[in-house]
């Protein structure tokens, strides 16, 4: 609402000098990450719209309904989900302990968060391998193409997050200068935000990919995406 109020200002009238908008580096970094997350959300939203539209064509085959379908056995995926949940939880632990000045917990949280994320990516890779060996290659059917595309792109985002995580680790184990400490605090905060987002995104993708064609049909019709 602030934004709307600002838009009704009359700048040609003398208005004095309002305070600076600058709220500190931490705030700026968070704002930058929020903008980035908006872009990533739009990206996946459009993929999901494309998925729903494509699912209404007659050659669509579900992935998880029959025992002979690729996602019928979801054990590995559940395991991977658990890894990502733990990664998110540990990064939150790191973030909170950082605020409360518990350096040991925060470092432990940071390290474990990253390791579980690596476990998630490795787990996804194992699952792709498993599908590949069963002959479920990418162009077998469109739903499977979307499965590889969406999970792959999600994994790429986790890996990009791990680069930021590496930077945070670098500040954590580097010299204890004030500069490094401030950076570490910001990076842990940003990593936690980013991982919560990735976890939520994974949840949506997981549900979407294993849903029934009737569900897609209902959503597509509701959104006017029917063919």
């Amino acid at each position, binding site marked *: 609402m602030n934004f709307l109020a600002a838009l009704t200002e009359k700048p040609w009238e003398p208005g004095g000098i309002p305070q600076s908008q*600058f709220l500190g580096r931490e705030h700026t970094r968070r704002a930058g990450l929020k903008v980035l997350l908006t872009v990533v959300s*739009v990206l996946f939203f459009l993929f999901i719209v494309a998925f729903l539209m494509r699912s209404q064509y007659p050659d669509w085959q579900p992935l998880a309904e029959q025992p002979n379908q690729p996602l019928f056995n979801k054990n590995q995926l559940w395991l991977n989900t658990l890894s990502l949940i733990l990664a998110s939880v540990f990064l939150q632990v790191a973030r909170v302990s950082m605020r409360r000045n518990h350096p040991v917990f925060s470092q432990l949280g940071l390290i474990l968060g990253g390791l579980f994320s690596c476990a998630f990516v490795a787990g996804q890779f194992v699952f792709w391998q498993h599908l590949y060996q069963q002959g479920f290659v990418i162009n077998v059917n469109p739903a499977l193409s979307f499965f590889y595309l969406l999970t792959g792109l999600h994994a790429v985002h986790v890996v990009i997050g791990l680069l930021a995580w590496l930077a945070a680790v670098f500040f954590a184990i580097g010299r204890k200068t004030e500069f490094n400490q401030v950076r570490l605090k910001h990076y842990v905060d940003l990593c936690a935000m980013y991982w919560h987002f990735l976890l939520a995104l994974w949840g949506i993708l997981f549900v979407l990919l294993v849903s029934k064609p009737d569900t897609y049909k209902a959503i597509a019709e509701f959104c006017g995406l029917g063919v």
Partner: protein
Amino acid sequence: MEDELEQDMHEPNSFWTKYVWSQDHKVIAIQYSVIAILVGIVALILSGLMRLQLGFPGSFDFIDPSSYYQFVTMHGMIMVIYLLTAIFLGGFGNYLIPLMVGARDMVFPFVNMLSVWFYLLAVIVLMASFFVPGGPTGAGWTLYPPQAILPGTPGSDWGIILMLVSLAIFIVAATMGGLNYVTTVLQARTRGMTLMRLPLTVWGIFMATILALLAFPALFVSAVMMLFDKILGTSFFMPAILSMGQQLDHEGGSPILFQHLFWFFGHPEVYIVALPAFGIVSDLISTHARKNIFGYRLMVWAIIIIGVMSFVVWAHHMYISGMNPLFGYFFATTTLIIAVPTAIKVYNWVLTIWHGNIRLNVPMLFALGFVSTFTIGGLTGLFLGNVVLDLPLSDTYFVVAHFHMVMGVSPILVVFGGIYHWYPKMSGRMLDETMGKIHFWCTFLGTYAIYFPMHYLGILGVPRRYFAYENYDFIPESAKDLNAMISVMAIFVALVQLIFLFNLVWSLFKGKKAGDNPWEATSLEWQTETTPPGHGNWGKNLPICHRWAYDYSVPGYEQDFLPQNFSDDTEEKP
């Protein structure tokens, strides 16, 4: 504390960190602009080659149908994405945003540097497609499947792959830049600089960046999915199809799905280019007419309304795809509605000039030229926005004339106007006025001579995208003469740009010294301690903003402009 450290961190101290791996927004802006202009010259040459074929069919052996389509495709894509988008956001955006909002730099300088290097990489990948077997893609700039990736279309082996990869890299670059522009405008404005005190240039670039951040993902989605179809044999967009007598492995995909995704990006793209142009023109007109911009608040609101509405008009590019008539009705309505805020802007520019103290210098000439070409191009948009008129006109030269007037010539005139206006700040020297005027009149009248006749060709039914026009009874002989004239003018206008390039280089060394504020402008970029501004822009203290950017000819003051950082309380009236 940390902010000071941040500032020192990218203080350049060697040639490499100062000019090559620079994190300074001003250097990055110039890097962006130089790359964009160079790649734009390639696209200009391609258009000349196209016109050679159209004006004098059969006279040039080296142009065959395949190479013609490659010229068309690369010309379109380079001009829209790699020149206009890059120079408005990466060039003008980078240079002007921190200076105009009173910041020392972009908020994430390192990401900003990465952005320009990713952009360069995207350009190199794209240019590489000229040297691979089969050459660049000739699928048309819209890259519609299935033809874009099937044999028979030029460049369907490597050209299309490089094009899609290059677009994906460009989108990463644009996103990294965009993060900076948006966050800087929102968070790094100096004390006193409220949103409604921002110059309209910043508003235009800010809104265009938001559009870019939200629209480019659609292009990314379509590029990635098409790459999968091409390389991995998936069927996102590819229907069951026979190619060269062979049944391909694809089946069930939807080419229309691609069109929706592409135009969900493609239409906002028009405004990604137009909104910064709107903003810059507003500032040029106000400064050089020595009058405050007419209806500032309405100008801001119009920018926002246009930005929002640009996401609900995309399917007017697809009227001939066989859509549901109700769907077409909806999009025709939104298309006509978006003309309202756009028209308001045109009225406000004209009313700003009304009774102004107009200084007809080169930037002002280009700004006025823009108002003219944009109005003409906008009016033909009203024709094409209607489904019934679009159906017969869609595949003719009328459309070519329309979109070149409205988003080719118009924004390019603003790019020129902007360069003539801010070059003194970037280099400390003025561009030569005489060369500038020759450049303006030849470009302005020349482009009219090129595109105005194309409307008539379109109404005659001359189809676009054709390589040659022999043996069509409905095309009169006179159309061929007209085409020859258009080609001659196109090559003339292209050659005139050499004057501009020469002027850029010559004035760098021999131009008149500019001083800090040669145009007597109010906005903050003209109030820096040194010209060109040094690292950190503002010396020891940030400027404090006391007023909006349009205090020209204020009654009661001797000088006819009050800079944004001028305060009544601390200084005597000038």
